């Protein structure tokens, strides 16, 4: 799919030269050069905090650089806001979509640039326009559908149509596949390739190596605010990109040896809650059970119900043989449950509080206090121990948790929960948005926890993570557990099909194994 003519021959669509941007305490961009040519898909990669978002914010007029120049189509520009950028033919699809759920597709697409007739919005013209655009670019979507009713994959199409309607010649996509099934992701890349073939440019901000290798023409890698590699995709490898991102050789996609399961720790029978039905599963001591599934198929609801944060409408949950179906979160924790939630900023930590206070949560009524008194010295000592044990990089226990990087915040959260030494650990998306280096550390911690004889229920959208860690894999689709695989049988293709609903329409779909213990 790589364009046969060398991309170098083409004119630059976007040219960033010597971009520098300093934020308090960090140099987010340091003399960054980036050239995106017409008709290419250019991947921008880097770990969290490498400066990708800052660079894209500079390009999109949301942040003013301290130094450097931006050229679009050969002309030097200085955008004051995203509106200017859009007018110059630059459009961005944000990770969280900016759409009106209650309006139709056509209304969303033409918003702020409506076709008019006698001063009024011409709805007929709007619908026609959407149909034309959709047809031209292979982005089939019903112009009259309400956006709120559409699946995420289609909403993303609406975002792209919106930019095309506004005449965007360069599209920036921020982590576009984070919420898509593998099939939807493939469809997205087909669209992007056809856009590139028409001479449009695409900047893909992502951390997924596989997509970059399959879908991009060139790759620019940022580390610590600097460009550390400019690679032609056809001539590079996942290992080379990963090494550039981390600054060292990284072993990717390690598959850990299976554990030795013991007694049943968690036993869930016919559980139902909002968006979850008929879930039966067991997790044994010394075992990691992985739940794979596209975001929004009931995994979060299931875990919240297990953690005691969401009422159970039917079924039974037993922990260590005791019925905890209607127990409170506190009672479950006392019984032996620890929980690493998906949203570490809003739920798993209080970022405005100090590192020490964050590490004390849950331990504050048990090991750290006596008769209700909580000695500040005990809290600090506990924090120091965990900081050391889990390699959390924090200036001191007193600094606010908001000063930690994403990876360190996650280490804090996981460390705090592991320190409970609970029989059952619920973990959601343990490495989402975490540096590759920290991923390895976190995976090792989870495996060590399992090997120490604890039960772990892991929910992750990263198939490689599930495959690497889990001893058994369950797939959730539309609120039910639809398939179960032993470690050896859980290859990426099989799981991908099951995640998309059993691979409907595909003759190669595996018949789901009956979920058993």
């Amino acid at each position, binding site marked *: 799919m790589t364009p046969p003519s060398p991309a170098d021959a083409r004119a630059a669509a976007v040219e960033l030269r010597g971009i520098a941007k300093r*934020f*308090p*305490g960090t140099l987010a961009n340091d003399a960054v050069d980036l050239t995106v040519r017409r008709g290419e898909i250019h991947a921008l990669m880097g770990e969290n905090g490498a400066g990708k978002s800052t660079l894209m914010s500079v390009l999109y007029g*949301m*942040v*003013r650089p301290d130094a450097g120049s931006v050229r679009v189509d050969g002309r030097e520009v200085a955008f004051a806001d995203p509106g200017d950028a859009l007018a110059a033919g630059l459009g961005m699809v944000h990770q969280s979509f900016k759409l009106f759920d209650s309006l139709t597709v056509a209304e969303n697409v033409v918003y702020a640039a409506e076709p008019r007739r006698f001063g009024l919005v011409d709805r007929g013209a709007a619908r026609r326009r959407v149909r034309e655009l959709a047809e031209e670019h292979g982005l089939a979507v019903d112009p009259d559908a309400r956006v709120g009713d559409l699946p995420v994959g289609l909403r993303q199409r609406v975002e792209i149509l919106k930019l095309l309607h506004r005449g965007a010649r360069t599209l920036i996509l921020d982590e576009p596949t984070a919420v898509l099934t593998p099939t939807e992701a493939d469809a997205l890349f087909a669209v992007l390739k056809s856009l590139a073939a028409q001479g449009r440019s695409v900047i893909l901000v992502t951390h997924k190596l596989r997509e970059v290798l399959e879908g991009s023409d060139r790759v620019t890698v940022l580390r610590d605010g600097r460009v550390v590699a400019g690679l032609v995709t056809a001539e590079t490898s996942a290992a080379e990109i990963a090494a550039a991102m981390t600054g060292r050789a990284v072993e990717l996609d390690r598959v850990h040896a299976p554990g030795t399961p013991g007694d049943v720790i968690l036993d869930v029978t016919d559980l139902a809650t909002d968006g979850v039905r008929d879930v039966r599963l067991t997790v044994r001591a010394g075992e990691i059970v992985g739940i794979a599934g596209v975001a929004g198929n009931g995994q979060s609801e299931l875990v919240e119900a297990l*953690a*005691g*944060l969401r009422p159970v409408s039917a079924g039974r949950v037993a922990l260590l043989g005791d019925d905890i179906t209607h127990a*409170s*979160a*506190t009672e*479950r*924790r006392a019984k032996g449950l620890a*929980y690493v*939630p998906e949203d570490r900023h*809003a*739920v*798993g*930590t*209080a*970022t*405005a*509080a*100090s590192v020490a*206070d964050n590490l*004390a*949560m*849950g331990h*504050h*009524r048990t090991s*750290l*206090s006596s008769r*209700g*008194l*909580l*000695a*500040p010295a005990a809290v600090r000592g506990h924090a120091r121990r965990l900081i050391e044990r889990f390699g959390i990089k924090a200036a001191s226990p*007193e600094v*606010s948790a*908001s*000063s930690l990087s994403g990876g360190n915040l996650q280490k804090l959260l996981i460390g705090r929960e592991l320190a409970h030494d609970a029989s059952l650990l619920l973990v959601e998306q343990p490495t989402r948005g975490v540096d590759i280096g920290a991923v390895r550390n976190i995976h090792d911690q989870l495996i060590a926890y399992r090997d120490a004889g604890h039960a772990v229920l892991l929910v992750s959208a990263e198939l490689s993570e599930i495959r690497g860690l889990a001893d058994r894999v369950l797939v959730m689709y539309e609120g039910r557990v639809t398939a179960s695989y032993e470690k050896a049988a859980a290859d990426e293709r099989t799981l991908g099909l099951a995640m998309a609903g059993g691979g409907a329409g595909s003759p190669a779909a595996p018949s789901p194994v009956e979920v058993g213990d």
Partner: protein
Amino acid sequence: MNHITRTVRSPVAFSVLAGVVIGALFLVGTGADPVAAYGAVLGGSLGADGIGATLTTLTSVLGLALALAVPLRAGLINLGGDGQLVLGGMAAAVTGLYCPLPAPLTVVLALLAGMAAGAGYAALAALCENRFGVPLLVSSLLLSYPAASFASWLARYPLKEPGSSLPQTRQLPDGVALPRFGSSTVTVGLLLVVLAAAAYWFTDRRTAFGYEMRMTGLSSRFAAYAGVERGGLALRLMAVSGALAGLVGAIGVLSFPYRFLDGSLTASGYTWTGLTAALLAGAAPVGTVLASFFFAVLQVGGLSMERTTEVPRELTQVLQAIVIVFLAARLRFPRSPGLTRLFRGRDTEQTPQTPQSPQSPESPQGELA
């Protein structure tokens, strides 16, 4: 040095300073001498003639500021301070009038009755939220009005002093009063309120309950995730809050004029001054004490300024308002990129986005003065 820089740059110090500067501009604009006016405020409130009045005012303002700070620390706002205050005062008056025990015991009982009345009534507001889903903000505010009306009715009809033209109860019997310091109007009530502040500080910093309260205020979702039950916490904090408001009411009745006079407890608007002080301090214990003192000085000093200079005391209210506006604006600064750049040196850490998420306990409002 670093500590001092941080204090000077703290948003609280900045807001107070901005209020003083803008107030001075107002004064100059109206042709008054700002130095003389501010001098009158300080001299009138902290000088030998004024300090008694300031400490008496501080008793009420600090008591109510604590009452509002306690729930605010967990992100809850009790808007029913007036109702709890009045019920506390009425309960103390009734106890003082009808308790057959010796006077000193009656005083203690009257204080306890005032606290119990305020606590029970505030807890009712929390129950409305926990049981029926009425937001605390609404339930506490709306419950305040019938309480005030009920006390007013008692003072006007069943408990009215015979022969008086005022809506007031009889005077409490001799000896049923809080001891005073010398000949001043300052009573033991100030000590009680300061003790309450100390207890609040201790709970906040040194207990598991205080920890849960702070974490709930910083992130209610985080606290809920870790098993802190909001309903129970709200009920307990509101009871404490109401008890403190009721205590202030009881202190008011057990001081001059030693009776319940309809409207007198709420006329000065101390509940709102208290709320302002608690917000200014982000509900932090030491900060709440300092902010209360600041407002007591303004309140008393403003009167004195009006007497000695031509400047109306409303200026001190303008000052108060400016401080609050600046403080409220500070909470929004980080959202605007331009202003973020401007304030970059000042707020390197993420500042809390709402008044319900008070500053981290280490923040330097402790060094405000």
